[in-house]
C-alpha cells in the first residue's frame, strides 16, 4: 500500500492508483471531462490538473500515478485558475445553446462551469462553425459545435467496442469527430456514446426533444432482452417510458448496453398493446372483464391440456404459474422452450460473467455472442486483448468480431466429446487449462451431454453459461416450467394438438410461431379446441386465441429477472398499468385464489428458490426432458435484434443479421444468389449466401419469421423433400 496526502488528508491506496482515484477515496472531488471510469485515461482535457509538491508544473490527476509520500493539493490558487482557464477555453468555442440542448441539466460542461468557471467569459470573437445536428446513424445524432474533444466516444468505439467507426478528422482547431465519408454510425453499441458524451454533442434520435432531465422520474431496472441482464435505469415522464440508460455494474455490464437494450423499449408504448381481457364470441374477440376471462380460462383448460412459454415472464409469475399448473390445472405438460432451446441452465456449475476476467480459456459453443448476448462481447474483447484465449466450436463460424481460434465442425457435440477425452486440436489445452468458461447456445441435447462430459473430466474449475436463451429462461427453468413426469415438451404438445389429442393450450407471453416448425404450429392451432394467451403485445397467437389476458410490461412491474448466471435481479416498476393490464404474477395468484401482495409472493419465491438469491453459484440444472433436437443441415441462430422477439418499430433501424443464410450448395440448389430477395409469408426476405456455412445447410433466425400469415420457412426454401416451392419466388436484388 502507498500512503499519500491530498489536501492535508492521508489516503492509503494500492500502487498504480491514479491521484484522481485516490482523491475519490479521500472524498475529494476533482473535476474532469475526458476521464471516464470505464475508459483508459488520456489526460487530454486538462481539467483535472493538481499541484504536486516538488513538481514544477501542475499535473493531471487522471493519469498521474501516486507515489509514496506524495503531497497533493487540489485547492491552491493556481489549480483554481487552471480550472477557470480550461472552462474559459471550452466555453469560448461552445455554442452555448443549452436551452435547446437535450443534455441541458445533465451536462458536465454546465456542471463544471457552475462550480469551476469564472463569472464572465472573455471571449468576444466569432466562434468556430462546424456541422450542426445531423444524423450520424440510425440512433445517434451529432452536433460538432458542442463537442469538447474529450474523445470518450472515439475511445469507447475503438478500445471497448473494437470498431473504430468514429474517428478524428483534421487537426488542431479544425479537429472534429466524424464517421467516414458516406458511412453510417450503425454499430450495435453506438448508443453507449450518447450516454458517455459529457455534453450534448452526441444525442439520441429517439429521445431527442422529448423531455428535460428535471422532469424525469428514474427507476432502476434490468434489461429484459437477453440473458445477460444488464443493469438499466428507466427514464419516465408522466408514466411514459422515454429512455433506457445503463447503470454501472462491475459484475454484469460495466457501463455498457447494446442498442437493443438501449432502444428496444418501443413495445411498451409505441406499438399496439393488449390492454383489455378478451373472449372469442362467434369468431371475433370481444372485450370482457377480468372475472369473465379468468372464468373462461378455468373452464377451457380441462382434460388433456398443456402450457407453453414463460421465458419472458417475471420470476414471480413463473413460480406461481408452475404452482397453478401443478396444483389447479394438474398437468405435467409444461415447457418454456418455444424457441429452439434445450436448457437454459447448463449441466454442472453455472458460470458468472466475471469469470471471464479470471478464466484461462473461454470456449464459445455454437454461440453467436454478438447476436445473442451482445454486451458479453465487450468483456470478452477486453480480456482477449489482455491475453485471454478464445476458442469457438461451431457449425457456422463468425461468432465474434475478435481474433479467436475457430474450430468449424458439422458435429459440434462429437467434437466436444473428442476434446473431453483430450483428443483433437484443442483437447490438451482444454483439459490442461486452470479455469475454463464455456459459453453455450443452449441448443442440442448432444451438446449438453458433451459439456457435462467436459465438466466431469476436467480437473480445474469449469463453468458454463447459456447465452442463447430469453431474458428470463433461466428463471423459467429454475421455477420448473419444464415437462414433468410423463409430461410433453413443446413439440410433443404441438404434435398432440395437431393430432387432435390435446383439449386446451395456455400460452404465456410468447408467440407460438417462435417455434421453428411453422407447419406444425399451423396444424396445432387448427385442431386445438381451446387456446388461451396471456401477454403484453398482440401477435399471431393472441389473434387466434379464445381467451386473451393483458399483462403489464416489464417496465411496469416490480419483479425479478434471472440472468444467465442464475442471479435473480430486481426490477422496479416505472408506472401504473395501462388499461386493464395486470402484473403477470397477479394473474396466477388470482387463478390460485391467493390473496397475496408483492411482499408475499417475493417471500415465497425466495423461500422456494433460495439458490437464485444466494452468494453461491448454482450447481447446474436437472437433465431436461427432450426440448430442441437438431435437424441435420438446419441451423438455428437466435438474435435479439430480430423483431420476432419483441416487436418494436425502432428495431428496423438497427443493423441485424440476414434472416436467412444459405450454404453455397444449398443456394445453388434453390437457384438463389447472395443478396436475392424472395417473398415469404408476405414479407420480403433477403438471403445471404455464405461460404462460412456448411455448403448444404440453411441458417434461419429463430423467432424471426414473419409478420402476417406465417409461411413455413423450411418448406419455402425447399428444405423438405417434395415441399411446396411455389411460395419461394426469388428475384434478383435491386
Amino acid at each position, binding site marked *: 500500500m502507498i500512503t499519500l496526502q491530498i489536501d492535508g488528508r492521508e489516503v492509503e491506496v494500492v500502487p498504480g492508483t491514479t491521484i484522481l482515484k485516490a482523491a475519490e477515496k479521500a472524498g475529494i472531488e476533482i473535476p474532469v471531462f475526458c476521464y471516464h471510469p470505464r475508459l483508459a485515461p488520456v489526460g487530454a482535457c486538462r481539467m483535472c490538473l493538481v499541484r504536486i509538491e516538488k513538481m514544477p508544473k501542475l499535473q493531471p490527476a487522471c493519469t498521474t500515478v501516486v507515489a509514496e509520500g506524495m503531497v497533493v493539493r487540489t485547492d491552491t490558487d493556481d489549480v483554481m485558475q487552471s480550472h477557470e482557464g480550461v472552462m474559459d477555453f471550452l466555453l469560448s468555442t461552445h455554442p452555448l445553446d443549452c436551452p435547446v440542448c437535450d443534455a441541458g441539466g445533465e451536462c458536465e460542461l454546465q456542471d463544471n462551469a457552475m462550480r469551476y468557471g469564472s463569472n464572465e467569459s472573455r471571449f468576444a470573437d466569432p466562434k468556430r462553425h462546424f456541422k450542426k445536428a445531423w444524423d450520424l446513424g440510425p440512433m445517434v445524432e451529432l452536433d460538432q459545435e458542442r463537442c469538447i474533444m474529450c474523445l470518450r466516444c472515439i475511445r469507447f468505439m475503438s478500445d471497448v467496442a473494437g470498431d*473504430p*467507426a*468514429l*474517428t*478524428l*478528422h*483534421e*487537426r488542431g482547431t479544425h479537429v472534429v469527430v*466524424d*464517421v*467516414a*465519408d458516406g*458511412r453510417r454510425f450503425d454499430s450495435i453499441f453506438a448508443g453507449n456514446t450518447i450516454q458517455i458524451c459529457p455534453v450534448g454533442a452526441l444525442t439520441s434520435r429517439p429521445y431527442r426533444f422529448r423531455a428535460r432531465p428535471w422532469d424525469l422520474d428514474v427507476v432502476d431496472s434490468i434489461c429484459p432482452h437477453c440473458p445477460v441482464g444488464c443493469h438499466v435505469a428507466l427514464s419516465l415522464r408522466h408514466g411514459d417510458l422515454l429512455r433506457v440508460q445503463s447503470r454501472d455494474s462491475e459484475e454484469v455490464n460495466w457501463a455498457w448496453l447494446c442498442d437493443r437494450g438501449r432502444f428496444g423499449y418501443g413495445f411498451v408504448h409505441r406499438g399496439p398493446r393488449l390492454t383489455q381481457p378478451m373472449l372469442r364470441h362467434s369468431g371475433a374477440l370481444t372485450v370482457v372483464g377480468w372475472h369473465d376471462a379468468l372464468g373462461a380460462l378455468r373452464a377451457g383448460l380441462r382434460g388433456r391440456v398443456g402450457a407453453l412459454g414463460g421465458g419472458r415472464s417475471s420470476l414471480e409469475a413463473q413460480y406461481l404459474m408452475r404452482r397453478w399448473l401443478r396444483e389447479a390445472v394438474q398437468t405435467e405438460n409444461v415447457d418454456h422452450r418455444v424457441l429452439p432451446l434445450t436448457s437454459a441452465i447448463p449441466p454442472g456449475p453455472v458460470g458468472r460473467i466475471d469469470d471471464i476476467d479470471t478464466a484461462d480459456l473461454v470456449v464459445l459453443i455454437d454461440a453467436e455472442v454478438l447476436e445473442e448476448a451482445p454486451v458479453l462481447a465487450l468483456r470478452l474483447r477486453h480480456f482477449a486483448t489482455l491475453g485471454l484465449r478464445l476458442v469457438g466450436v461451431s457449425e457456422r463460424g463468425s461468432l465474434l468480431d475478435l481474433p479467436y481460434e475457430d474450430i468449424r465442425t458439422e458435429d459440434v457435440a462429437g467434437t466436444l466429446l473428442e476434446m473431453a477425452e483430450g483428443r483433437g486440436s484443442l483437447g490438451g489445452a482444454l483439459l490442461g487449462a486452470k479455469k475454463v468458461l464455456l459459453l453455450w447456445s443452449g441448443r442440442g441435447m448432444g451438446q449438453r451431454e458433451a459439456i457435462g462430459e467436459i465438466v466431469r473430466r476436467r480437473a480445474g474449475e469449469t463453468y458454463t453459461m447459456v447465452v442463447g436463451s430469453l431474458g428470463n429462461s433461466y428463471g423459467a427453468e429454475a421455477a420448473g416450467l419444464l415437462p414433468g413426469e410423463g409430461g410433453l415438451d413443446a413439440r410433443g404438445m404441438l404434435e398432440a394438438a395437431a393430432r387432435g389429442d390435446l383439449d386446451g393450450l395456455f400460452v404465456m407471453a410468447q408467440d407460438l410461431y417462435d417455434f421453428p416448425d411453422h407447419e406444425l404450429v399451423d396444424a396445432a392451432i387448427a385442431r386445438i379446441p381451446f387456446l388461451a394467451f396471456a401477454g403484453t403485445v398482440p401477435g399471431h397467437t393472441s389473434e387466434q386465441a379464445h381467451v386473451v389476458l393483458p399483462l403489464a410490461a416489464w417496465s411496469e412491474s416490480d419483479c425479478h429477472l434471472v440472468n444467465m448466471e442464475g442471479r435473480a435481479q430486481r426490477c422496479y416498476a416505472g408506472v401504473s398499468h395501462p388499461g386493464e393490464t395486470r402484473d403477470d404474477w397477479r394473474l396466477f395468484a388470482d387463478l390460485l385464489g391467493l390473496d397475496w401482495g408483492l411482499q408475499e409472493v417475493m417471500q415465497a419465491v425466495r423461500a422456494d428458490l433460495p439458490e437464485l438469491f444466494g452468494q453461491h453459484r448454482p450447481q447446474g440444472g436437472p437433465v431436461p426432458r427432450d426440448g430442441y433436437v437438431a435437424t441435420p443441415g438446419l441451423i438455428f441462430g437466435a438474435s435479439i435484434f430480430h423483431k420476432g422477439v419483441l416487436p418494436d418499430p425502432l428495431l428496423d433501424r438497427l443493423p441485424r443479421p440476414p434472416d436467412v443464410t444459405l450454404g453455397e450448395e444449398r443456394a445453388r440448389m434453390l437457384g438463389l444468389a447472395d443478396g436475392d430477395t424472395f417473398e415469404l409469408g408476405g414479407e420480403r426476405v433477403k438471403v445471404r449466401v455464405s461460404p462460412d456455412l456448411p455448403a448444404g445447410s440453411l441458417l434461419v433466425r429463430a423467432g424471426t419469421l414473419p409478420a402476417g400469415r406465417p409461411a413455413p420457412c423450411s418448406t419455402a426454401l425447399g428444405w423438405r423433400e417434395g415441399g411446396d416451392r411455389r411460395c419461394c419466388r426469388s428475384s434478383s436484388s435491386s
Partner: protein
Amino acid sequence: MNAENTRRAEQLLGSFPNRSSALIPILHLVEDEFGFIPEGEVESVAAMLDVTKAYVESVLSFYTLFHRQPTGKYLVQVCRGLSCHLRGGDDLARFLYEELGLRRNGTTEDGLFTVEEVECLALCKDAPVIQVNLEYRPNVSRADLAKFLRQAREGVTADA
C-alpha cells in the same frame, strides 16, 4: 493506383516491422500518382491495410501534404515561416495570386498551378523560399517567379 504503384504498395506492406507503418508511404504513392487522394483510393488503401475507411480518412486529414481535391501540375508552396516573412515571403505569395488570378490558396482553372502558403520549410537561411512539387527554390524573387510561370506555361520547365 497504377500497376507499378500497386506493386510498390504491396512491397511497402512487408517492409516495416508492423504493417500499419505502410499507410503513410502508400498515401504518398497515391498523392504522387493522382496529385491528390481520390475517394476510391481511400477505400482501396483501407482494404490493403485491413483498416476502415474512416481510419484512413482520419489519418490523412491530419497531414497537410495530403490533398482531398486535385492539385495543379505544379504545386507551388510559398513559405510563410517567420524568417521568410521577414524577407518578403508574403510578397511572393501576393505576386502569385495576382499573376494567377487566385484569391488565396487554390488551383488555377487550367489545372496548371496550385498555390499554397505553408509554414516554415526549413531553409530559413535562404529566405524567401518556395517549393515546387516539393523541390526547393531558395532566395526567390518576383523576377524568378515570373520566369518560372512563363516557362511552366510554355511547358519548358523540366517536369519536377
